[in-house]
């Protein structure tokens, strides 16, 4: 519970100031009504006007305060909440780094995106909709009860009881009624979101197969469930508000009655009766801001819980390869000896695997889909540690080398390489931020993309969402260009030709071989299911 609050709570002066201003705002609202009531009652006794001046000034001042503090409070609190979120986002991203790509199965990715996006956004509601209204209501209640206590302790006591009823009966009750529906609603919303994205992303297949209308029906069924939940929830909201209104009226009437009794007994001056009656009314008005706090807190808590789960996620051993501080100055060779590789919490994908690669060599790893070829790539890059066996580079255990040393030396072109939203230049510069345009064009020439982009807007050609503006083969070539630009001494190509036509595939692999020979150091690991393509390598190792 403490951690859940901690994660969304801005412990800053800004937030503290926001809370103070928010309390002042609430107190101004109560004081405005109290001062008005006193002014009118006192005026009814028809004193000289100068006796009223202080109240007149007070009324105007509190009126200004109520509006001005409100503006300041909202700005301060929002700023504090947003700052807290800006801190949290990168922390969570950082946490996820070692899990990608080997740790989170693709099935978890959608969930993770929801978490980092929506859940982190939800965190702002703790300071804005939970803490600030509750602190404001509590402070206003305390000050009002104390203030009334000086005038008439019995009224103060009565108000206190009604306030306690509001805080500890009405608020939890309406919260409880809507509790179940809140939980259900969250899961239905998640279902709705996944159905919606599936429909949008695969509209072509759904249309061609005539599956669009059943999918639309599923969506509207989910919406119907949401509707039923909402209907139940609306009962809860209404009950809460009605109870608040009832308590407010009751507190006002009881105060009026006690006040009237005291006036008839000459225990209270009649001038104060209006004030005593109206203060409870004003306090309850402020309190109504805090009414949605319970259900806001619950929504917050479930998001905070998920974020905490993510933050406390243990990094499995195989995702925690040890790194030293050596750099690899010149790659000479690498060895996998009796290697066994497995994903976290699963059976080994690969066992007793031996592999040797020397500088300048090109070796094909050929095998059927599902035989663990990609896993070898992940292990070579040390995204995944061996669960047994050894892995050596230049004769030393890989654990001697630093992570950046490994990254500089061994590169990978993934089977489904990520093309980032943006232009060609931005996508290439990921590999080498300092590269000049001339270098970029040279690289594009080498992978056969020069004319394509020269005909469009050059390096500024936009690639669109998920690289939709270029074809699968072009995306593959661009990813290859990116890897060449990074100038890895060892380059692993995972099914580089899955979406490239066969003629070009041969050309492309020949290009790479030529580059390797020219450099005389670059070693290439070609992962493919294609026996013909594998023959282009110096050696073939079948898995």
């Amino acid at each position: 519970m403490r951690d859940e609050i901690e994660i969304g709570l801005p412990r800053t002066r800004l937030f503290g100031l926001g809370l103070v201003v928010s309390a002042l705002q609430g107190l101004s609202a109560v004081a405005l009504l109290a001062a008005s009531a006193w002014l009118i009652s006192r005026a009814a006794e028809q004193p000289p006007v100068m006796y009223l001046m202080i109240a007149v000034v007070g009324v105007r001042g509190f009126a200004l305060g109520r509006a001005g503090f409100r503006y300041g409070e909202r700005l301060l609190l929002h700023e504090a909440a947003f700052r807290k979120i800006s801190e949290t986002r990168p922390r969570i991203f950082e946490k996820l780094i070692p899990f990608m790509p080997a740790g989170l199965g693709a099935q978890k990715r959608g969930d993770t995106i929801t978490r980092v996006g929506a859940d982190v956004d939800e965190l702002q509601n703790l300071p804005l909709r939970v803490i600030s209204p509750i602190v404001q209501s509590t402070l206003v209640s305390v000050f009002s009860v104390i203030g009334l206590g000086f005038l008439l302790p019995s009224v103060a006591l009565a108000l206190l009881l009604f306030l306690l009823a509001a805080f500890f009966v009405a608020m939890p009750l309406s919260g409880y009624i809507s509790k179940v529906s809140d939980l259900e609603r969250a899961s239905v919303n998640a279902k709705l979101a996944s159905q919606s994205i599936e429909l949008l992303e695969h509209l072509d297949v759904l249309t061609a197969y005539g599956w669009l209308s059943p999918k639309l029906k599923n969506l509207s069924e989910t919406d119907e469930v949401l509707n039923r939940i909402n209907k139940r929830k609306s009962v809860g909201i209404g009950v809460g508000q009605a109870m608040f209104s009832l308590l407010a009226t009751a507190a006002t009437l009881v105060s009026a009655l006690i006040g009237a009794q005291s006036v008839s007994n000459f225990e209270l001056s009649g001038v104060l009766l209006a004030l005593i009656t109206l203060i409870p009314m004003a306090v309850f008005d402020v309190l109504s801001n805090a009414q949605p706090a319970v259900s806001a807190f619950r929504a917050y808590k479930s998001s905070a819980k998920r974020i905490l789960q993510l933050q406390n996620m243990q990094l499995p051993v195989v995702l925690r390869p040890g790194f030293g501080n050596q750099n690899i100055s010149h790659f000479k060779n690498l060895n996998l000896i009796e290697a066994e590789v497995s994903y976290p919490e699963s059976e080994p994908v690969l066992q007793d695997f031996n592999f040797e690669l020397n500088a300048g060599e090109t070796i094909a790893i050929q095998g059927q889909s599902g035989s663990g070829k990609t896993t070898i790539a992940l292990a070579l890059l040390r995204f995944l540690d061996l669960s047994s066996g050894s892995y050596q580079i230049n004769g030393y255990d890989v654990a001697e080398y630093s992570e950046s040393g490994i990254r500089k030396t061994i590169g990978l072109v993934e089977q489904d390489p990520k093309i980032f939203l943006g232009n060609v230049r931005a996508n290439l510069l990921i590999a080498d931020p300092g590269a000049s345009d001339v270098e970029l064009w040279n690289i594009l020439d080498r992978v056969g993309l020069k004319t394509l982009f020269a005909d469009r807007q050059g390096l500024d050609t936009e690639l669109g969402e998920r690289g939709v503006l270029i074809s699968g083969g072009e995306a593959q070539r661009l990813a290859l260009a990116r890897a060449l630009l990074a100038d890895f001494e060892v380059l692993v190509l995972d099914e580089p030709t899955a979406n490239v036509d066969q003629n070009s595939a041969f050309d492309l692999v020949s290009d790479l071989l030529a580059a390797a020979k020219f450099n005389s150091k670059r070693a290439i690991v070609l992962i493919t299911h294609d026996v013909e393509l594998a023959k282009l390598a110096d050696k073939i190792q079948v898995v």
Partner: protein
Amino acid sequence: MVALATLGTFATAVIAWQLSLLITNTFIEGSSINSSWNSVLIAGFAGIFKALVIWLQEFVSSRAAVQVKIELRGKLFKSIGQLGLNWLNKNSIAEINLLATTGLDALEPYFAKYLPQLIYTALVTPALVILVWSQDQLSAITLVATLPLIPIFMILIGWATSSIQQQQLDSLTKLTQHFLEVLRGLPTLRIFNRAKSQVQIIGEVSDQYRIKTMKVLRVTFLSGFALELLASLSVALIAVSIGLRLVDGRISLLVGLFVLLLAPEVYLPIRQVGANFHAAAEGATASQKVLDIIDEANRSQPQTVMPQSTSTQMEFKSSNFNVITGVSGSGKSTIFRSLLGFDGSAPTFKFNDVAWMPQKTFLFNGTVCENIIGSDVVDENALSLALTYAALDDLKLEDQVGEDSARISGGQAQRISLARAFYRALTLKTQYLLFDEPVSSLDDSRGQQVVQSLKEFAKSGATVVAISHQRYLIDAADYVFEVSSA
């Protein structure tokens, strides 16, 4: 709604009157406590009544709001289906998804709070002003003079903020997009040793978003400030004026208190309109976007543009195995998309007469069987045939494919996609089979098996067209169409 609003106002007025009566009687007349009991009882009943009305109001309006939201969402998706792929390709999927989910959620406060409050304001405010007028003209005049300022301010500020609201929605979309991008690209970023530097960039982007949003809020909150200020200053003005007139004896305490109690109530509805304005503006922007899409769907007629040049030059023969090949980027997949009408041209066939296997495999999270048949009705014969044709021999029908096909390999996913197309061809007896890169992820022996299946369909009279650059598939073709770039 109207009746509820009127009843609620009536109860509020009764409570205010009884309280004023009680205070005046005790303070000025020195009446006994017994007469106070009368007022308290009447006000108490009015209070219970008022609470009931509030409950009903909330209940009715929040139900209506969700209903509207669901209706709009249904229409939105139907319209997207009508507008089709050509339209969708021109828009960002992330943006539309956000609009259909979070964007439409913003409609709820609009319909549950903003609109009812607006109606409420239009009804209750004049009624209360008339009530005040009957007791104290001067206060009523103050109200009448200040009230119109509120909508005027709101309109002025609304003009200033509408473009800003748009900006806020845009920056939210951008932030979401950026996150999806970096998360999906995290493996790639790690390969290039850039993941750690992204941590800082995410912080910076979040900060930029915060600064942008705060700029928006500074203006948006201004409207709230103006409302609050006008409301509380008017109450102050009325209180002071009543006070000063009481000193001269030009007004009675009873009337003074009654007006003082009613004055905030006059401003309350319009203040709540203002309080919900921020949320409502977001809802209004979202609903405008949705309505635009629905309108577009209603206006759009199926276009009758001729298919793109490449496809018209090819004549695919029935009872033959036709293969299209060519360098990547020469628009081979576009030929199929054009034939299917996905690029805005008129579809060449009826969907019922085509079994299309797309290049990019899409499976939904479910069993192998569900992914193949896509409905509840299963034709056992066709299904087992389809499995054989697609060389899907290493998965059970009830195996789960997992989200994003995570539980199966790429080759298995492609073979499920093949089985799906074969099943369709078998059950609907389609004349056309359009297969886009059917063997790209398959090993040679299974690939050969699939080629034989395609040839068998051609033999039985179907028009089979495959796009491929796999040598053994091209070698098996009856006709080969070479597509050169541009």
